[in-house]
């Protein structure tokens, strides 16, 4: 024990003399843990929210009856079914805006607690516990999650007004409720949503639904049994989103570990003599290793705690953006306030410890193999380096093979990420090999001895700087890749949106009777040049939710509905009901090509249609199909239009909106003009990539830090290598400039190599990852301005990182340079 103590004390004394190395190890671990834990916090927060949404109405297996067109339907159907012995319970769901709360919408869920399926619990709490009388009585209750209440800045018991001026029942905290949800009695929900006598679904007990009794004939044409719950659907739909976040987090983690690996490796090199002395003093190999592991563990623990704390901060900072993108992309509500389970903290620490062990494994192995009596061989570096480079080269080649394999045979998102990981890691490992080859090729062309020294010495610096340069390469490539993809997506998306959103005004009627009334009223408005109704049916195609839309007026769509690929005379044939068109992502999911046939389930049996065209439907996680309205109505009789697109002069739009809102009870979620819709879509887009962009910049920051730390640690050993040159007559200032030149040379070479790698990465993202994750493929676009900007930034980071050690070198006194001769071991 005592021996262990003294061994540890001797080992730790190293850090006291080299605080910079200590800082590197800690900073690397801290950064790695921080970003990784931050991303994990975001993901677990979101998953927790989905789980709560899923548990709201009693667990995973949920059955309900919904309208075939996905809209609200008459409460009378609920009564008819109850009186036919069906144990259904009505539910009304909608979005509610509160007065004075801006654009934020809450998910309003109206339930009927007396008939909720037996055994069902509300938000995981047994039903009996609820204060039912208060809920059912007057003024009733609005149940809300504590964090949502706090986000709204309201107190329990408050009775805010809805945007349309209706007073809510007193807000009451229900702890396990999903975030962003307002749970009220169905009668209250009908009043708040202005939907008297309307429901959105009828819940069924699983045992009853599994027996699949036939619906009464009168209702079979209108209602359909649906299985599944929103929470599970959300988890499925948002999977890709979270996987992308995880991948970025993992990238940051790897970059951080590079730093740790470099710093620990350097520390071991510098402690070789110490280790040998300890061994010769009688410390057993096991004792030494135990001490080294303990040292590493202690460092990891320290950095891990700091990393978790800052990871929490990072997550809290990114959460609003992530929550906003999830809400607007998937309609998923994620609590805007972080609340993390203990396992997150423990898991984070464990990952940090494992990471530290992984990063230090090489060094520990070398320590274990340390020849007890061999002398230091500082001049043997060249041999060692050659071996090291060969090994790296082979590894890189192997990873390249893996990447190629994943590219050729990959058909899943996971393999897509394997491709990315192999590509990046392989390129990183190949970097020092490549740089070495470049420098080696350059050496014979150097005339002056100083120039030869310049190149040869750069080569010698490679092992020390390699890891930092690799980190820089990774971060740069990731930035180029993600940046190109984002910018390309933005351009494609806005062009697509401009084309697609051609109508000036969009209307969504509340129900069938209002749809008829609106249609009749609009017919009398001379300024409306065209009125394009569309019908909608919700389908499940191979278990994937899809929306079937029926349209008329093909001429308009021909002009404004861009197709990615189409059969000859696609629109004319669609009009003749000879086929359908579908979104790119759905075509991929169902593995359908032009000319193939798809069977749609309808109340009157299967409806088989040929695929006539495929169109982009960016940002829609669900599938989408387009058919001629007449055919849709024939298979689903009695459907009312779900939305109207209106063509009219832009100047007339505000007046028409006002007239519509005066004439019909349409809130602003049901009347949207083109400009508002575009602005909204743009916001959704920006938010979606806000978190990605932020994480990306953080990764670049980590890489810059890695470079700085490597240069700093290297700077300390450089003195002894530069001293001979100084002794030969090269001035200190000149030496400093030469050193700067070396660093910049390596950095610029790395930047140049990062460019093709980044573009390759961008291609992988748009052509592989996006296709697998979201189902759409984007054209690869290169933005030179963006690349130049990034290069400038990277060079600046390199300069800054190099400045401090060089400034120190320039200022080092002749005495210090002389002393380095004496210190030479």
């Amino acid at each position, binding site marked *: 024990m005592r021996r262990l103590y003294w061994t540890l004390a001797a080992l730790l004394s190293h850090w006291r003399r080299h605080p910079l190395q200590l800082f590197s190890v800690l900073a690397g671990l801290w950064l790695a843990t921080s970003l990784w834990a931050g991303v994990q916090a975001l993901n677990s927060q979101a998953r927790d929210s989905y789980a709560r949404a899923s548990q709201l109405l009693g667990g995973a297996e949920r059955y309900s009856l919904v309208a075939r067109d996905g809209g609200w339907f008459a409460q009378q159907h609920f009564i008819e079914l*109850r009186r*036919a012995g069906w144990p259904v319970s009505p539910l009304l769901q909608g979005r509610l805006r509160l007065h004075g709360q801006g654009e934020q919408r809450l998910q309003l869920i109206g339930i009927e607690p007396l008939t909720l399926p037996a055994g069902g619990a509300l938000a995981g709490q047994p039903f*009996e516990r609820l204060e039912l009388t208060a809920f*059912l009585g007057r003024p009733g209750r609005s149940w809300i999650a504590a964090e949502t209440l706090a986000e709204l800045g309201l107190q329990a018991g408050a009775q805010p007004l809805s945007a349309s001026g209706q007073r809510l029942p007193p807000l009451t905290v229900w702890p396990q409720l999903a975030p962003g949800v307002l749970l009220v009695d169905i009668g209250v929900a009908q009043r708040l949503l202005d939907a008297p006598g309307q429901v959105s679904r009828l819940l069924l007990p699983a045992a009853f639904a599994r027996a699949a009794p036939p619906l009464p004939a009168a209702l079979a044409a209108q209602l359909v049994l649906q299985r599944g719950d929103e929470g599970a659907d959300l988890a499925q739909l948002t999977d890709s989103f979270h996987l992308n976040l995880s991948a970025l987090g993992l990238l940051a983690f790897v970059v951080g570990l590079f730093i740790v690996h470099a710093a620990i490796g350097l520390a071991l090199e510098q402690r070789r003599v110490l280790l040998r002395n300890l061994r010769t003093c009688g410390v057993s190999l096991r004792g030494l290793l135990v001490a080294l592991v303990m040292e590493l563990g202690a460092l990891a623990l320290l950095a891990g705690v700091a990393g978790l704390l800052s990871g929490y901060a990072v997550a809290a900072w990114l959460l609003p953006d992530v929550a906003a993108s999830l809400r607007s992309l998937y309609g998923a509500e994620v609590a805007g306030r972080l609340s993390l389970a203990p396992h997150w903290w423990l898991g984070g620490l464990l990952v940090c410890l494992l990471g530290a062990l992984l990063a230090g494994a090489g060094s520990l192995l070398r320590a274990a193999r340390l020849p007890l009596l061999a002398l230091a061989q500082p001049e043997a570096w060249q041999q060692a380096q050659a071996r090291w480079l060969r090994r790296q080269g082979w590894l890189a080649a192997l990873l390249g093979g893996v990447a190629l394999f994943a590219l050729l045979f990959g058909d899943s998102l996971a393999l897509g990420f394997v491709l990315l990981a192999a590509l990046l890691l392989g390129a990183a490992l190949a970097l020092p090999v490549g740089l070495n080859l470049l420098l080696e090729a350059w050496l014979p062309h150097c005339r002056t001895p100083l120039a030869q020294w310049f190149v040869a010495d750069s080569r010698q610096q490679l092992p020390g700087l390699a890891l930092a340069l690799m980190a820089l390469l990774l971060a740069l490539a990731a930035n180029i890749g993600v940046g190109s993809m984002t910018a390309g997506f933005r351009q494609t998306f806005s062009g697509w949106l401009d084309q697609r959103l051609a109508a000036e005004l969009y209307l969504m009627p509340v129900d069938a009777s209002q749809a008829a009334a609106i249609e009749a009223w609009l017919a009398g408005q001379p300024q409306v040049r065209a009125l394009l109704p569309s019908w909608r049916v919700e389908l499940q195609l191979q278990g994937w939710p899809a929306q079937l839309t029926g349209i008329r007026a093909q001429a308009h769509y021909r002009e404004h509905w861009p197709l990615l690929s189409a059969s000859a005379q696609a629109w004319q044939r669609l009009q003749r009901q000879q086929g359908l068109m579908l979104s790119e992502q759905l075509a991929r999911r169902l593995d359908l090509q032009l000319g193939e046939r798809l069977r749609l389930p309808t109340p009157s049996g299967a409806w088989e249609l040929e695929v006539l065209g495929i169109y982009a439907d960016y940002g829609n996680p669900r599938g989408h199909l387009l058919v001629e309205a007449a055919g849709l109505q024939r298979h689903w009789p009695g459907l009312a239009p779900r939305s109207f697109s209106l063509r009219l002069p832009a100047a007339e739009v505000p007046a028409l909106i006002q007239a519509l809102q005066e004439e019909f009870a349409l809130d602003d979620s049901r009347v949207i003009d083109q400009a508002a819709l575009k602005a909204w879509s743009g916001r959704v887009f920006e938010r979606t990539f806000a978190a990605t962009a932020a994480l990306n910049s953080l990764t670049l920051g980590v890489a810059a830090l890695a470079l700085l730390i490597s240069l700093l640690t290297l700077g300390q050993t450089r003195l002894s290598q530069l001293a001979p040159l100084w002794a030969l007559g090269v001035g200190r200032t000149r030496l400093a400039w030469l050193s700067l030149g070396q660093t910049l040379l390596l950095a610029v070479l790395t930047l140049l190599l990062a460019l093709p790698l980044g573009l390759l990465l961008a291609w992988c993202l748009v052509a592989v990852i996006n296709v697998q994750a979201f189902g759409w493929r984007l054209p690869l676009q290169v933005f030179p301005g963006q690349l130049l900007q990034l290069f400038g930034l990277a060079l600046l980071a390199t300069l800054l990182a190099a400045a401090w050690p060089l400034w120190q070198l320039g200022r080092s006194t002749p005495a210090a340079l002389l002393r380095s001769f004496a210190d030479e071991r």
Partner: protein
Amino acid sequence: MRGQHARISLALLAGLLLLAACDAETPAPAAGFAGLGGAAQGFARVEPGRLLGFPADHGAHPDYRIEWWYLTANLQDAQGRPWGVQWTLFRNALQPGSREADWRNQNLWMGHAALTGPDGHRHAETFARGGIGQAGVVAEPLQAWIDDWQLRSRSPANGGLGELELQARGEGFSYRLRLTSERPPVLQGAQGFSQKSGQGQASYYYSQPFFQAEGSLLVDGKRHAVKGQAWLDREWSSQPLAPDQQGWDWFSLHLQSGEKLMLFQVRQADGAHYRAGTWIHADGRAEPLSQADIQMQPVRFSRVAGRRLPTAWTLRIAAKDFAIDTTPLQEQAWMATRFPYWEGPIRFSGSHPGVGYLEMTGY
């Protein structure tokens, strides 16, 4: 005497409303019933002297807090095996006078159905909100329903009770009965003003104990044609319960002589059980029985749902030379509803043999 039933109904609904009240061993004090509050609170009071009128009073009385339509039938199948059927619709108002025809309606409805046969006892319960059509009662022609359970008048004869159709179903059972009666309803207590307990609680109460019943039962997919007698109780009140009442034992008996008898005792904490009853002559005349007339003595106890219940009784009314011993058709006729109780068919022998129903709560 549905004074007891007043208790069961309130307690049942309280059980629905508040977990605390679910503890059957100790009925919560009346004041503790959430949402029910004190006696006054705007609900109409039960006063003597009100004349009951039919068919109007077959319907709901939303100015009063609690109300029920309670039907029990003692039946026999073709092989002579005995069966029992229970059908109950409870109404409980959170606020007085609520008549809205939408979700704002403050009446809550609860249905209980049970079928007791040679092989056991099956039961079901269901809940509904008032005002939307899932449950309700129309006086003329009488129709009381919740989900697909219903009690429906098929003829205006005999004040609307001349011919009724009854149906309900639960897991593994369903029944459909046709009920006919020729005698007018029996007004309990003083012309339908029925005094409860020693503390002066009261309700409006009338019965139709003279139904002839026939129909069919479906049990686990097997159909049984049945015939027998049925008894309808109608009662409404606003009064809360006395806090010291623990439960009650209630009998409705069809004597072979054609006479009917209703007896009950409310068990009070102080041991002074409050007993009352009505002797209904074969011609429909009702003769109230007082505490002193009635003797009720448990003779056998059984383990039911982890409780000790008196499932066999000796009943005596000295003035009528009445002395019988009762036996349950199924000892385990337990209603494991939100507020559980025992209710099932019985038969009896002695001075006046016959069949009937026994209800026991608060055990």
